[in-house]
């Protein structure tokens, strides 16, 4: 919302010299709401004046250019211009005198154009930023050359405070200048001067009737007929203020309704009475499917939730949102019906949201307006119309249908409570003064204040003592409140095991040269297809903005694949991991525990990718990560065969922790036929939520061996289908003195024979009671070789 300081000054004394607009903006930011920007309108067109064309010649070096001598008041300058607009000697128009920067950001400097110096520029409206049109505004001889264009055009000399609308969502009263002025008055300790409302004299020429069929949707409707209207421009002072606040002046009636809206925050509307059949206003819900053309010429499809203003035959306005095209005020309008009403915030909000039609009116009604404001605003509008349009008079009685219950909110404020919440004592006198300046009625008895909330704050905004704590503390100044850390009882915080494990696991992976990444929680339609998902199993969004946000990701791997692809041009080796939630279209936690349904199941996964342009055996790199992680976490790990779409050449295993298979723990080589990322990629993809629930056994110390070990390397030739795990188990079972078996290498070549491979490993022998003799170990080796030969047909190489 744009707030004009000139407008504020109508209601509160703002000292011109001692309080600069920036300082006022800061005070408001610190006490009331966020001022996003301070715009000085008078400086915007500084350096642009009215100039008179004295002489025009063709540019000697350019066909399409002209050279003009221009009188800019205190001197004559030379300006080169083109042919967008035809200019002749004697024309008076806006000239930018170099050097100057226009509101559009264009810098005008003295410069030679095709050899001839230009000392300024003839300005189009679009270049001045006063309209979008590429036309020149000409002036008559009444204006002297050299007059600043801002004065010649009656542009407001004003400073605008641009308010962040979100910061006044809860304050319908601040959507008008009087409300803002009240804040300024309270902050500066000044008096608010509200406009005087004069009693309305009515004639009973017309019989205006108002009927409200839905009192929840429309608690109050005031209609007033005013005759003797002559449509004309509104007074300059009003136009200036409206322009400052960002509203385009149209005519006296529309401007007055807008003016009152920007004054009190109460939207109003005016109908041409010729278009109101039967002289009756009926407020009722639309028929489902009913069509209505709003003021902007758009045909709108309505539902039975939308509220319409009707005459006896048809709809004439979409209540609280926008008027109808069929009943707007025209140039020859003589009699109007002025509407000042109160509508349900929920109804207005639903309609404006569904039609995606946000207007100045809907923005205000949806914030819950005070029904009493409708009356004040009506009177103010009538006063202004009678003042501005000579001959205008109220030609009907004031038709005021009021179902609103006047809501008096009284809050008992315990001054100890106030002190407890703020953390220090603010003198009672000061507290009372602050509240009174904000127009709360205050009575003190003992240690309590009885505080009556003014109507314009009573709708949603202020209702409990806590709200008053805010009122007092913000005007008192938060910066004046002393800070102190809370006094608490020491208590050891409960540890969230899953979060603790997250940190452990992430640190482990960082040590293993993995970089952590975060990917979007979305999955694109395209990826859902590529990666072979059935849409039924995916969680779908209702209001996604782009096709790449249609689903929630069911897996972290596609994101990592895309990351790897992105990084491949820059790195030969990529190691990335992500720990995050995935989403499944199946019941997860209860929504609220009240039997009202479930949230989607959203377990956490821990997934990583290893991509390398050079290295082979990537599968084993990924498997090694999982094995080492298990060891680090003191989990028992084993593997099961697994094979599915994403697995290349059967190089995939299911990971089993502590002997119990849990859903979704895999390590595999990625199948690039699914998605080609131009390099081999290995994946580990673990169900972190379940992993975190596994019972972890405390690590235990085993004594360091007292006697030396003997290590022997052994290479055997076996059939190529013999598995290492089986060989290892067989070796381990050969003798209790065997304390460890370590894989060394495997290879096959022609020398070994067809379908044969050589398998090399180390065996560690040790006794806990004595030093082993070499001969003993020789005996065991013999035993091992015999077993391997019997079992696998293996022979010593």
């Amino acid at each position, binding site marked *: 919302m744009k707030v004009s300081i000139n407008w504020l000054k109508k209601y509160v004394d703002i000292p011109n010299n001692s309080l600069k607009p920036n300082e006022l903006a800061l005070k408001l930011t*610190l006490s*009331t*709401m*966020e001022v996003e920007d301070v715009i000085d309108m008078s400086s915007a067109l500084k350096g642009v004046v009215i100039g008179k064309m004295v002489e025009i010649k063709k540019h000697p070096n350019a066909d399409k250019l002209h050279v003009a001598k221009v009188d800019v008041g205190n001197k004559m300058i030379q300006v080169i211009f083109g042919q967008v607009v035809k200019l002749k000697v004697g024309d008076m128009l806006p000239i930018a005198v170099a050097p100057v920067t226009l509101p559009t950001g264009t810098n005008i400097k003295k410069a030679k154009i095709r050899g001839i110096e230009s000392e300024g520029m003839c300005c189009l409206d679009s270049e001045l930023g006063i309209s979008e049109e590429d036309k020149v505004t000409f002036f008559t001889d009444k204006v002297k050359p050299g007059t600043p264009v801002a004065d010649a055009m009656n542009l407001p000399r004003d400073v605008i405070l641009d308010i962040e609308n*979100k910061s006044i*969502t*809860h*304050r319908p009263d601040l959507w008008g200048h009087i409300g803002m002025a009240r804040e300024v008055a309270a902050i500066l300790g000044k008096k608010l001067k509200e406009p005087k409302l004069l009693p309305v004299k009515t004639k009973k020429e017309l019989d205006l009737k108002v009927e409200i069929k839905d009192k929840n949707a429309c608690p109050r409707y005031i209609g007033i007929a005013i005759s003797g209207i002559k449509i004309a421009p509104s007074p300059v002072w009003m136009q200036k203020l409206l322009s400052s606040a960002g509203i385009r002046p149209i005519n006296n009636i529309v401007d007055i309704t807008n003016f009152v809206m920007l004054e009190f925050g109460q939207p109003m509307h005016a109908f041409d009475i010729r278009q109101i059949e039967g002289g009756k206003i009926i407020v009722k819900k639309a028929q489902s499917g009913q069509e209505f053309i709003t003021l902007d010429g758009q045909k709108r499809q309505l539902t039975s939730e939308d509220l319409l203003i009707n005459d006896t035959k048809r709809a004439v306005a979409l209540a609280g949102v926008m008027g109808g095209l069929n009943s707007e005020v025209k140039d020859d309008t003589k009699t109007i019906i002025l509407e000042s009403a109160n509508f349900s915030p929920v109804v207005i909000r639903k309609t404006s949201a569904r039609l995606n039609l946000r207007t100045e009116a809907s923005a205000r009604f949806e914030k819950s307006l005070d029904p009493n404001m409708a009356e004040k605003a009506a009177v103010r509008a009538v006063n202004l119309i009678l003042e501005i349009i000579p001959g205008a008079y109220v030609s009907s009685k004031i038709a005021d249908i009021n179902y609103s219950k006047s809501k008096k909110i009284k809050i008992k404020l315990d001054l100890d409570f106030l002190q*407890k*919440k*703020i*953390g220090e004592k603010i003198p009672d006198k000061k507290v009372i003064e602050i509240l009174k300046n904000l127009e709360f009625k205050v009575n003190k008895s003992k240690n309590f204040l009885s505080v009556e909330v003014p109507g314009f704050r009573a709708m949603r905004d202020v209702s409990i003592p*806590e*709200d008053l*704590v*805010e009122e007092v503390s*913000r005007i008192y100044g*938060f910066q004046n*409140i002393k*800070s*102190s850390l*809370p006094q*608490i*009882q020491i*208590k*050891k*915080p*409960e*540890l969230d095991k899953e979060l603790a494990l997250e940190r452990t696991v*992430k640190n482990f992976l*960082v*040590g293993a*040269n993995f*970089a*952590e990444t*975060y*990917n*979007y*929680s*979305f999955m694109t339609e395209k990826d859902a297809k590529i990666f072979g998902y059935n849409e039924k199993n995916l969680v*779908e*969004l*209702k*209001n*996604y*903005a782009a096709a790449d*946000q249609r689903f*929630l990701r069911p897996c972290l791997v596609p*994101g990592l694949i895309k*990351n790897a692809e992105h*990084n491949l041009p820059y790195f030969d080796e990529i190691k*990335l991991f992500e720990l995050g*939630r995935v*989403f499944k279209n199946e019941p*997860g*936690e209860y*929504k*609220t525990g009240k039997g009202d349904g479930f949230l*989607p199941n*959203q377990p956490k996964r821990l997934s990583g990718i290893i991509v390398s342009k050079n290295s082979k055996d990537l599968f084993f790199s990924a498997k090694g990560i999982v094995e080492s992680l298990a060891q680090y976490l003191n989990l028992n790990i084993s593997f099961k065969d697994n094979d599915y779409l994403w697995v290349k050449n059967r190089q995939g295993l299911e990971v089993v922790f502590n002997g119990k298979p849990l859903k979704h723990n895999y390590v595999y080589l990625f199948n690039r036929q699914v998605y080609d990322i131009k390099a081999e990629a290995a994946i580990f993809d673990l169900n972190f939520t379940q992993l975190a629930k596994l019972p972890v056994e405390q690590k235990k110390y085993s004594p360091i061996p007292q006697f030396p070990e003997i290590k022997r390397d052994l290479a055997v030739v076996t059939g190529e289908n013999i598995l290492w795990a089986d060989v290892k188990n067989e070796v381990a079972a050969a003798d209790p003195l065997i304390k460890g078996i370590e894989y060394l290498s495997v290879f096959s070549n022609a020398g070994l024979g067809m379908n044969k491979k050589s398998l090399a490993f180390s065996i560690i022998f040790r006794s806990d009671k004595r030093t082993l003799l070499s001969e003993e170990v020789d005996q065991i080796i013999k035993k091992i070789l015999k077993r391997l030969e019997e079992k696998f047909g293996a022979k010593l190489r």
Partner: protein
Amino acid sequence: MSLEEQLKQLRNKFLHEIGRAKNIQALSDLEIKFLGRKGEMSRILKGLKNLSGEEKPKIGALANELKNQIVNDLNKASQVIKGEAKEELIDLTLPGKKVMYGRLHPITLVKNELADIFTSMSFMVLDGPEAESDFYNFESLNIPPYHPARDMQDTFYLKDGNVLRTQTSNMQVRAMQKYGPPLRAVFPGRVFRNEATDASHETNFFQFEGLMIDKDINIGNLVATMQELISGVLKKQVEVRLRPGYFPFVEPGFEMDVECLNCGGKGCPVCKHSGWVEIFGCGLVHPNVLKYGGIDPKKWSGFAFGLGLNRLVMVKYGINDIRLFMSGDLRFLKQF
């Protein structure tokens, strides 16, 4: 001192001095000083006669060895000085052997720092669902359906009627219900907004929410705790300011700004020339929210705060584009 020790000392002394010899003359002086007839070696070996028969040959051998070493060293040095021999040249400016290590995401780094600060003040760290019910994300936070405050956050709705949480505040009532008062907890996590992305807007980002419920919690407590948080993360004292902010689940509600670290508060494009960067929303917990959490607002009060982690990380490291966080670009990730 035994002869053996004396010899060792002699050796060290020699090595020390030969290191400083810059020319041939210096070398021959050294030879005379250490090996000459009246040199240091001879002086030590005079002690031989006092030794037992067993020891004599041992020390003799040692002395011989030392003498050979010295001769050897002197020869080498003289060759080097004359330019006849090349000393083995090692370029010590070559880089050390590279140790490969990974990186935590900068969001994780700062999240961990914050969590540690709050754990040290005995806050729990809790996690919660990202696909959330309307109840926990809005209603229990004093934001009924059709409340204009819903406009403040552009929400992603799911087909099943749930939402992607727009704020980590969804954990407030969850934590109250689960643990009851007194309560101290922080909730870091991912949140979602349905808006167009640009250098300062993202659809997926991270927040860090905190909640403290106890007896007699006041505004001053909130400010002091927030100051601890900010100086803890930024590792220095920075100016903060509190101004009114509207969040339906707190009353009173505040926005907390920190002085712009980019310009030191003078005003620059990062802070939109205001000198301040908005980092937090915070306030005293609204009694309605306490009631939703099953806590009696007459007995208990509390404060809550929520900060945009991305924004804080950007301020801390000088990152200018929020989209980098979700880019998965190793050229970005490897900088932290």
